[in-house]
C-alpha cells in the first residue's frame, strides 16, 4: 500500500489527484492537502471581475467530490516538507496547518507539490486589495470586490463624471499578462454595454517589452502574405477599442489615486486612476524543508523564488544560449526521487521573454507563464509516472516538456452570445525551440490566432466542460486537458 499526497487543489493539483486515484489500486491512498474548501476555475474569474458571474458560478466545494472519488481531503496549508522523516520515523511527511492553527503531519510515499503561486502584493508598495489601492482578479473574492468597485464607477459615470481605469501588472517581474489583457478588453466591452464608455479613459500598463509578448516572447502569426508578430494584433485591438498603453514599465508604488512607475528607457512617470486592476508578481508559497536531523534544507529543494527545483537545467545562461532542453520534462526533484512539482509550483529554468534592466538596474521582464492547459497536462503526466512508480517502475515513465508541448488559449474580449468576441490562439511549442524551428522558435503552421464570436462560444463551452470535468462527473477522464 502506498500513499500519494498532493499539495494544492488548483488546476494542477486537482488533475493530478483525480488521475492518480483512477490509476492506483484500491489499497493505495491519495490525499489532497489544500487550504480552501472550494475548487476555483480561475480563468472565469475574469467574468466575475466585470460582474457577469458570481463567485459561486466559478467554484464548488471539494469535500463531496473527493469523498465520492475516494480521495482524502485535508483542508490545511502545507508549511514544511520532511523528505527523510525525522529521528522518530524514517517515513517522509509534510506538516500542514489547519484553520485553527493546529499542526498536522501527513506521511507520504510520493509527494506532488501543486501549490501554485503566492500572490506577492507585498513586492510593490500599495499594491493589492488587501490594504492596498488596487484590485485583483486572482481569487474569486478579489474578483467580486473588483466587480463591486466597477459598479460604483459606473454609477458615477451615469451621473456624468469621467473616470480613469488602469489595468495591467503591478511589478516589473509579473507574469499572467494574458489574464490582465482579458480583463481590460472585457472591462472595455462592459463599459460599452452599460452605455458609459464615452466617459471612461482606459490605460494598459505592462512589463512586456512589446504588446502581445504575454511572457512567451510573443508569437508570430501568418496573415495576408506576412508573418506578423502578435504585438501588431494586440496594438490593433487596443487602438480599435480606444485603449491607451504603457509598455516596458515597472510599477514602483500604487498610491490611492495614481501609480508611480519607471520604464526601461529610464523615464519615471505616474498614471492617475480612479479604478486600478493590477496583477501581482508571483513566487512559490514558501514551503520549508528539513532533513532527518531537523536541519533546514529548503535551498536544496527550492529555488530562491521559492518554486521547487525539478529536472530542469538551472545553470544561469544569457538568453542567446537558452535551449529547449533546459526545460524540465519529468518534474521529479533531483534531490528526492519521490517528490514532484506540477503547474505553477515548479521552478522554470529561466524566462521565455528576453529580460531587460532599466538604467537604475531594475529588472523589467515578464516571468514565464504556466497556463491552465500545460499545468493540467504536466499534472496528468506526473500522476501517471507516480502510479507507475508505485507499481515498481524505477523512474518516471512520462514526459511533458513545455518545449515539446503546445498550448491552446482563448482570451475573452467581451462576453455576449451574439456580439461578444474572444481571441483564440494556439502555439506550438510553448517554449520556443530554435533548434527545431530556427526562424521564430515555433511551428508556424500550428501557431495561430484570430478574434471572433466563435472564440467566445468556445470560452463558454470550456467554462462548463472544465467545471464538469473538475466535478469528476461521468466520462471526465475523456475530456482533454
Amino acid at each position, binding site marked *: 500500500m502506498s500513499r500519494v499526497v498532493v499539495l494544492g487543489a488548483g488546476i494542477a493539483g486537482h488533475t493530478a489527484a483525480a488521475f492518480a486515484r483512477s490509476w492506483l489500486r484500491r489499497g493505495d491512498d491519495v490525499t489532497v492537502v489544500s487550504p480552501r474548501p472550494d475548487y476555483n476555475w480561475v480563468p472565469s474569474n475574469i467574468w466575475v471581475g466585470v460582474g457577469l458571474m458570481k463567485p459561486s458560478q466559478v467554484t464548488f466545494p471539494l469535500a463531496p467530490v473527493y469523498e465520492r472519488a475516494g480521495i482524502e481531503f485535508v483542508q490545511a496549508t502545507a508549511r514544511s516538507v520532511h523528505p527523510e522523516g525525522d529521528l522518530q520515523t524514517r517515513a517522509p511527511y509534510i506538516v500542514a496547518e489547519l484553520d485553527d492553527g493546529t499542526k498536522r503531519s501527513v506521511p507520504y510515499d510520493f509527494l506532488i507539490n501543486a501549490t501554485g503561486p503566492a500572490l506577492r502584493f507585498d513586492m510593490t508598495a500599495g499594491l493589492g486589495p488587501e490594504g492596498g489601492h488596487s484590485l485583483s482578479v486572482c481569487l474569486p473574492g478579489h474578483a467580486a470586490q473588483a466587480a463591486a468597485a466597477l459598479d460604483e464607477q459606473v454609477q458615477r459615470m451615469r451621473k456624468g463624471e469621467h473616470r480613469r481605469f488602469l489595468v495591467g501588472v503591478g511589478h516589473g517581474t509579473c507574469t499572467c499578462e494574458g489574464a490582465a489583457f482579458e480583463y481590460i478588453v472585457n472591462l472595455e466591452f462592459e463599459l460599452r454595454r452599460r452605455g458609459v464608455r464615452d466617459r471612461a479613459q482606459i490605460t494598459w500598463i505592462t512589463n512586456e517589452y512589446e504588446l502581445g509578448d504575454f511572457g512567451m516572447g510573443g508569437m508570430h502569426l501568418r496573415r495576408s502574405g506576412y508573418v506578423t508578430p502578435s504585438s501588431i494584433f494586440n496594438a490593433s485591438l487596443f*487602438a480599435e477599442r480606444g485603449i491607451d498603453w504603457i509598455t516596458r514599465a515597472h510599477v514602483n508604488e500604487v498610491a490611492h489615486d495614481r501609480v508611480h512607475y519607471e520604464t526601461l528607457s529610464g523615464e519615471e512617470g505616474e498614471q492617475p486612476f480612479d479604478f486600478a486592476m493590477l496583477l501581482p508578481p508571483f513566487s512559490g508559497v514558501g514551503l520549508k524543508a528539513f532533513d532527518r536531523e531537523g536541519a533546514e534544507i529548503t535551498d536544496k529543494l527550492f529555488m530562491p523564488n521559492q518554486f521547487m527545483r525539478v529536472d530542469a537545467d538551472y545553470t544561469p545562461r544569457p538568453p542567446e544560449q537558452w535551449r529547449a532542453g533546459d526545460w524540465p520534462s519529468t518534474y521529479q526533484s533531483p534531490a528526492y526521487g519521490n517528490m514532484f512539482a506540477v503547474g505553477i509550483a515548479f521552478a522554470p529554468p529561466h524566462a521565455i521573454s528576453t529580460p531587460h534592466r532599466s538604467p537604475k538596474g531594475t529588472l523589467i521582464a515578464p516571468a514565464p507563464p504556466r497556463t491552465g492547459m500545460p499545468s493540467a497536462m504536466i499534472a496528468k503526466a506526473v500522476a*501517471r509516472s507516480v502510479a507507475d512508480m508505485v507499481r515498481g517502475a524505477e523512474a518516471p515513465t512520462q514526459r511533458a516538456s513545455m518545449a515539446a508541448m503546445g498550448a491552446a488559449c482563448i482570451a475573452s474580449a467581451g462576453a455576449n452570445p451574439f456580439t461578444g468576441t474572444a481571441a*483564440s490562439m494556439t502555439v506550438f511549442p510553448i517554449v520556443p525551440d530554435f533548434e527545431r524551428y530556427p526562424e521564430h522558435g515555433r511551428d508556424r503552421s500550428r501557431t495561430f490566432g484570430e478574434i471572433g464570436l466563435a472564440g467566445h462560444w468556445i470560452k463558454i463551452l470550456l467554462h462548463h466542460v472544465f467545471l464538469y470535468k473538475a466535478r469528476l462527473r461521468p466520462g471526465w477522464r475523456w475530456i482533454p486537458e
Partner: protein
Amino acid sequence: MRAERRCTDHEKLAYVTTPTRLTVFMRTFLPWQLWRFAVINLKMIEIIARSHRSNPVRRQASDETLRST
C-alpha cells in the same frame, strides 16, 4: 455597440494596423463564425493530440499500469 477611438496618443495611433470594416463585421457574422467554431476546435484538438505525441511515453510501464487497472 461601436467602439470609440479614445486613445489619446495620436502619434502612437498613426503607426497601428487597424482592421477594415469587413474584418470587424466578419468577427460577429453568424454563418462565418459557425464555420470558424468548427475550424478553431479542430485546430485546438490537433494541438492537444500533437502535444501528447511530442512527449513520448516510455510505453512499457504505462501499458502495464493500464492493463492492471
